């Protein structure tokens, strides 16, 4: 049942407001009006909400609805709600009056401003524009093809600059006949190329109505994230997944389904590309700040001792990419020692805007007495609204260093490092250091004495045997002696003498080689021994030559050439026997 008169609650609220607010100033009161739809089809209902809020609402006249062209007021559908809250420790109340209308004729209209008397003062709302559309213009085929529910990733801008905040909204669209009972965003969404900071999202998404392609959808922002591009170029935001529980109001319920027609849907956004522009060049100190900031620089000591640490603090406060701001580099006098800087920051997430403060502290130490000036510095941050850099001038900082009298006596005991680098020519040498065992020359030197000793030992043994073993010495010299006799044979002019020397050389060789007594040897005996020691052919050849030597006196036709031939045969025979024995 819809209440049309002043309820008991309303009266109590008024008493509550009067008691607690007293005489609050009129400027605390605000009045606004809004239409639930701005594009309405003929025959569709639309709702007007008039909201009156403030801390000193003593008397309010209900808003009077005038005749509105294009709409017909359903006078029986008016309702009212009240909301209490504390603002700055003081109670505040908001009254909302709801009025329902039916759209009439197609066309563009304006809802006139409403005049309301509050505490005896007239307040007016702003006029509201709206359109009434003809339903016959809807493409039924298109409407039927459009999905019942889908989710989109909607960045606040698709052409940011590096470091600019972009709000990425995950927006759910669903038709009126679809009822969404719950949704669950999938964790782990990554925005590669962006710094990501979560914003404060509503516990329960608020829906608004919108027309897409002539089809009415409910639009709900499920969550919002602030992202900051960290590089220029085309960057792509990957798909975002949401799981929703839905129920189609028009679908006939399955009598066997105890889930009351609920259905689980896994929705996914399409990837979205952003064209990120690089930041322009600047001559000022720039440390990556994009947004709106207040920047200041201070020094903690204006007088310090030599060796005492001094802190130069740079504070950056404002809205923008606070997490991405790096320490500004200043030009410090060379005689100052710089130590590792310190950094601290805090981040706020109010009103869909990342902000906060960041503080950088440079720690410096003066090593000598005197006045030190850290020069004035131009500090730039990029303002995306103005599309240019804002320059902040950080004033010069001055401090004076003096020697601490207590440290005078201790300095003389300090070590000083006076070693200077050598910058001229250097003597270079190979770096490798192989073990001895891997060096070839080591092995060569090791083998050399052993080898020498071995050769000397062999020579010594041979000499000793030649001196002490007559048989060995005869055998070793046999060949030389035999060839000596053959040399006489070659030199002689008489054939008989020649064959005599051949015979003598053969007898001497065999007897020396086999250590036989020279006396009493005969051709047959020598031949037998050689046959035993070597082979038949050698013995036969020996016997042939020796026989010829003995019978040469009976061979008148023997020539000098025949002798030379036999000398050569005897020489070959001696070599052969020498090898075989």
């Amino acid at each position, binding site marked *: 049942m819809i209440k049309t008169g002043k309820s008991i609650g309303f009266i109590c609220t008024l008493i509550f407001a009067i008691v607690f607010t007293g005489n609050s100033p009129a400027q605390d009161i605000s009045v606004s009006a809004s239409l639930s739809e701005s594009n309405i089809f003929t025959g569709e209902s639309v709702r007007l909400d008039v909201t009156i809020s403030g801390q000193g609402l003593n008397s309010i006249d209900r808003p009077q609805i005038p005749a509105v062209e294009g709409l017909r007021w359903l006078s029986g559908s008016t309702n009212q709600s009240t909301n209490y809250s504390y603002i700055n420790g003081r109670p505040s109340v908001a009254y909302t009056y709801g009025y329902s209308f039916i759209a009439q004729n197609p066309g563009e209209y304006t809802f006139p401003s409403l005049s309301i008397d509050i505490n005896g003062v007239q307040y007016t709302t702003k006029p509201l524009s709206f359109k009434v559309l003809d339903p016959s213009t809807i493409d039924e085929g298109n409407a039927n093809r459009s999905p019942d529910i889908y989710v989109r990733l909607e960045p606040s801008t698709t052409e940011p600059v590096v470091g600019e905040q972009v709000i990425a909204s995950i927006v759910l669209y669903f038709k009126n006949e679809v009822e969404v009972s719950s949704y669950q965003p999938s964790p782990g969404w990554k925005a590669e190329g962006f710094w990501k900071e979560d914003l404060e999202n509503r516990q329960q998404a608020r829906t608004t109505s919108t027309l897409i392609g002539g089809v009415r959808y409910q639009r709900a922002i499920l969550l919002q994230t602030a992202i900051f591009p960290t590089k220029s170029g085309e960057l792509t935001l990957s798909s975002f997944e949401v799981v929703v529980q839905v129920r189609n109001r028009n679908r006939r319920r399955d009598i066997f389904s105890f889930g009351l027609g609920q259905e689980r849907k896994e929705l996914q956004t399409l990837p979205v590309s952003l064209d990120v522009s690089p930041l322009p060049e600047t001559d000022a100190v720039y440390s990556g700040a994009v947004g709106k900031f207040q920047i200041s620089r201070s020094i903690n000591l204006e007088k310090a001792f030599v060796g005492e640490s001094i802190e130069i603090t740079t504070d950056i406060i404002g809205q923008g990419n606070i997490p991405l701001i790096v320490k500004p580099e200043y030009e410090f006098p060379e005689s100052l020692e710089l130590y590792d800087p310190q950094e601290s920051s805090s981040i706020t997430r109010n009103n869909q805007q990342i902000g906060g403060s960041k503080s950088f502290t440079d720690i410096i130490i003066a090593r000598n007495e005197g006045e030190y000036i850290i020069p004035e510095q131009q500090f730039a941050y990029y303002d995306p609204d103005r599309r240019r850099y804002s320059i902040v001038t950080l004033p010069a900082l001055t401090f004076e260093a003096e020697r601490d009298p207590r440290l005078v006596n201790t300095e003389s005991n300090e070590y000083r490092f006076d070693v200077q680098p050598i910058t001229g020519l250097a003597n270079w040498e190979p770096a490798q250091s192989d*073990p001895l065992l891997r060096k070839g020359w080591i092995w060569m030197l090791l083998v050399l004495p052993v080898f020498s000793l071995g050769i000397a030992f062999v020579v010594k043994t041979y000499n000793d045997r030649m001196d002490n073993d007559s048989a060995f010495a005869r055998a070793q010299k046999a060949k030389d002696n035999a060839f000596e006799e053959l040399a006489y044979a070659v030199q002689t002019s008489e054939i008989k003498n020649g064959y005599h020397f051949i015979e003598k050389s053969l007898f001497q060789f065999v007897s020396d080689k086999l250590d036989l007594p020279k006396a009493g040897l005969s051709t047959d005996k020598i031949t037998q021994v050689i046959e035993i020691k070597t082979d038949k052919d050698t013995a036969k050849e020996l016997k042939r030559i020796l026989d010829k030597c003995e019978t040469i006196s009976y061979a008148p036709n023997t020539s000098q050439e025949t002798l030379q031939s036999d000398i050569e045969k005897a020489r070959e025979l001696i070599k052969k026997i020498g090898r075989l024995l």
Partner: protein
Amino acid sequence: MRILSLIVLSLFSSINVSARQNAQLMFDQANTLLEENNFMGALESYRNIEKIGEISGPLYLNMGITSIEIDSLGLAKFYFLKARNFSATKSTADEAIEYVSSQFSRQSAMLPKLPWDRAVNNLKVGIGASGIFILGFIMISISVIVIIFNWFKPIPIPKKPTIITTAALLSVLTVVLAFYVDYVDQRYKDGVIIVKEIPVTTQPADNADLVSIAYEGYSITVDTFTSENADGWYYIRLGNGQFGWIKISGSKIL
């Protein structure tokens, strides 16, 4: 054959000369970076010279000075110790080591070395394994010559066999000593801790029992042979005589 030998010899010489010229050029460039206070760039350039296999005293001295500039005192000590091995930079390196050692927050107790270890170390640093070997070779060669000479023409000296045997034995012992010194040199390397602190453990594992903590600048002895049993770990002896394992990244071997 002679021409071929000459070609090979001249080629080898030209390669050596070229390497030294490159090293000097790179050294000059690194020095320029050092003068421009580009310490990291200078250290990188000095290391590149080491990589091409050329070293010198000034190189290591400048690397030590650069390491001080980048506030890495352990590394500075390491390079100064290397510079001390060169006669040209020994005294300067000693001075630098004295300064660096005074800057470490913790000093390591050092046990004196045993006489035998000290003698071997002196031989290693002084004449070196190669020098001892050459000495041994000369002694062996003289012994062999005397033996051979005596074989062919006996030398009229008293107690000849005793003298020759003793000389030969001493020669062989000298060569064996050369190999021992080389073995010790290859197995036990001096090193320096270059990180602020590093745990020394009983086993080459992160969760092993702790023996001690080694701090930046501590001198250590690394047993490279035992260290081969565990990848990424060194088996070390601390200055106070304790043994244990440390991660390779925490130290540098001289």
